[in-house]
């Protein structure tokens, strides 16, 4: 059994829904979006877990909960076996150097007024890990490692003077400068062009080996998962509907939603034809999710019970679980 880095158990995050003043008086029932609704998984050392889903599936909120950027409404997150809730203020500060994040949009996550060097060395100063010349050395060292070369030259540049690929490298360097062992990468390549995407993916795989990292890789793109993830968890309306080793899930998808997602991925091959039609409709409103299995209104295999009972994850193969009693039969 490999060492456990992150474990989440029955994680729930509700966001209250803004409503009109009058209806607030008239009804006492508090409405909430269940952004994350009972999610559990473990990420072991050296592993890349892909968290896949469409917008509104709760994948980004799950990432933010793990990083402690937002508090869970219920459930528990632990880092190396210790619940986050038991971490004191100072310990939490230190933990932030061990768990880092790479965001989707390097335009939005890098300040246009900070030079590359300032951006990359900033976390060292914030966390009191280094300052002055030492911080500069450490920043340049990590810049070299992520391919921002020559580091001394790029150190003084501003984000707008860099290419899209270089900006994403800055975001990666900034995440790695504090020597974390766990990184949440939230759609790190979604904004990048095709040729840049491949480069960033390859870089992330190499850095994982070099620095002995563990990733939570959040994405809507199943095809890229194949090149970086060891396991994937598919989310739909705040719940994991299927989780397992990547090869196993791709070659033997069980949940009808996973099958649909896999089927919908654009295939760069003119001969390819989809074998099943796309389901009608879109993800329902998370304020008012369907009862039972949230996917049942769009599901071709739905049975009457699916509208009543909320399915739990069931074992369907080695390390492979799916929340569909119909298909698991």
């Amino acid at each position, binding site marked *: 059994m490999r060492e456990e880095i992150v474990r989440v158990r029955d994680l729930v995050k509700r966001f209250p829904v803004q409503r009109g003043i009058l209806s607030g008086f008239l009804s006492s029932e508090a409405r909430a979006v269940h952004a994350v609704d009972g999610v559990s998984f473990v990420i072991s050392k050296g592993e890349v877990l892909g968290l896949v889903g469409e917008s509104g599936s709760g994948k980004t909120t799950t990432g933010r909960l793990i990083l402690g950027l937002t508090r869970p409404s219920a459930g528990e997150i632990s880092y190396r076996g210790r619940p986050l809730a038991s971490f004191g203020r100072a310990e939490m500060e230190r933990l932030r150097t061990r768990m880092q994040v790479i965001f989707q949009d390097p335009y939005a996550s890098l300040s246009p007024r900070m030079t590359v060097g300032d951006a990359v060395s900033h976390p060292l100063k914030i966390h009191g890990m280094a300052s002055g010349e030492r911080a500069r050395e450490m920043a340049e060292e990590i810049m070299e490692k992520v391919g921002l070369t020559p580091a001394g030259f790029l150190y003084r540049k501003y984000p707008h003077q860099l290419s899209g690929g270089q900006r994403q490298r800055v975001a990666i360097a900034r995440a790695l400068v504090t020597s974390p062992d766990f990184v949440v990468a939230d759609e790190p390549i979604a904004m990048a*062009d095709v040729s840049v995407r491949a480069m960033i993916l390859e870089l992330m795989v190499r850095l994982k080996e070099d620095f002995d990292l563990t990733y939570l890789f959040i994405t809507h793109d199943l095809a890229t998962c194949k*090149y970086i993830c060891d396991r994937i968890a598919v989310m739909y309306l705040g719940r994991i509907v299927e989780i397992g080793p990547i090869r196993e899930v791709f070659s033997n998808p069980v949940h009808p939603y996973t099958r649909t997602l896999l089927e919908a991925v654009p295939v760069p091959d003119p001969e390819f034809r989809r074998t099943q039609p796309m389901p009608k409709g879109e993800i329902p409103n998370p304020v008012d999710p369907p009862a039972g299995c949230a996917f049942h209104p769009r599901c071709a295999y739905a049975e009457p019970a699916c509208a009543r009972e909320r399915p739990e994850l069931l074992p369907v193969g080695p390390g492979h679980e799916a929340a569909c009693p119909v298909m698991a039969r």
Partner: protein
Amino acid sequence: MGAGETILSIKGLHVEFPISIGTVKALQGVDLDIVKGEVMGLVGESGCGKSTLGFSIVRLLRPPGRITSGRIDYRGRNVAGMDEKELLRIRGRRIAMVFQDPLTSLNPLFSIGQHFVETIRTHDRAVTKSRALEMAGDMLESLGISRQRLGEYPHQMSGGMRQRIMIGLALVMRPELLIADEPTTALDVIVEAQFLDLLEELRGRFDLTVILITHNLGNVAQLAHRITVMYGGTIVEVAPAGDLFRRPLHPYTEGLLASIPNIRLDRPRLVTMPGSPPDLVDPPAGCVFHPRCPRAMDVCRRERPPSVSGDGRTVSCWLYKEVP
């Protein structure tokens, strides 16, 4: 594609954007023919000029962008030389465009019905409001949306529905050429697949010719009859979709194909293309791709490659004296 009648013919198109630090040479001599009934995929990475080409065809280049030379002949008339009045008879009526983000293209204060009425009456004053609403209702139904929803506002619609409304607005005047600029980029993967299915269905029903602009080769693989690959303001290759995927000729096309993840293939890793796209204020001499090209020769650094055509395909690369 039937008789293969060319409805749009672009020749030697140059577009420039003068900016503070110089002039962006966004299109540097583009030649392209569009055949009636086809879906032409226009593919390339950000800054390659694919959207600029689309906007040029409907003459909606954002200032200071301007066409500096070349022709855009639509059924024998040069769109590049038309005045506003002439353009109004073509744009929206004969050639329509759908944009990437439906939320910014729809007015939040207008109901869906009002959007249609305004669009229709801008092009044809003779249509009464009630007739326009009737046309709008028919259009909604062919998009798989109930006509009851004409009174609703954009925020009441899902992302996929808004994108369908956009295409409905583009098609309500029954244009023959539809230019769709990254129509699915803002959509989730299942909605994207639904939208592309709908586009194919509408093409048949409305007898459309489509130019589908996208950065995602996967999107156009099944839909497009032909694919045009652009790089650094130039067209590097045009070919029937099957030929392009089976046997890419231009080294850039080859690199692009190798760098897209394919969920159906077991390929251990992606091939990466070193370098980044050219600075179009000061584009490289010779072939714009030569600084990144694994097969660059001396001549590539000096002279721009001519286009060679044959067998239904065209390529601009010094590796080819003729289409192999």
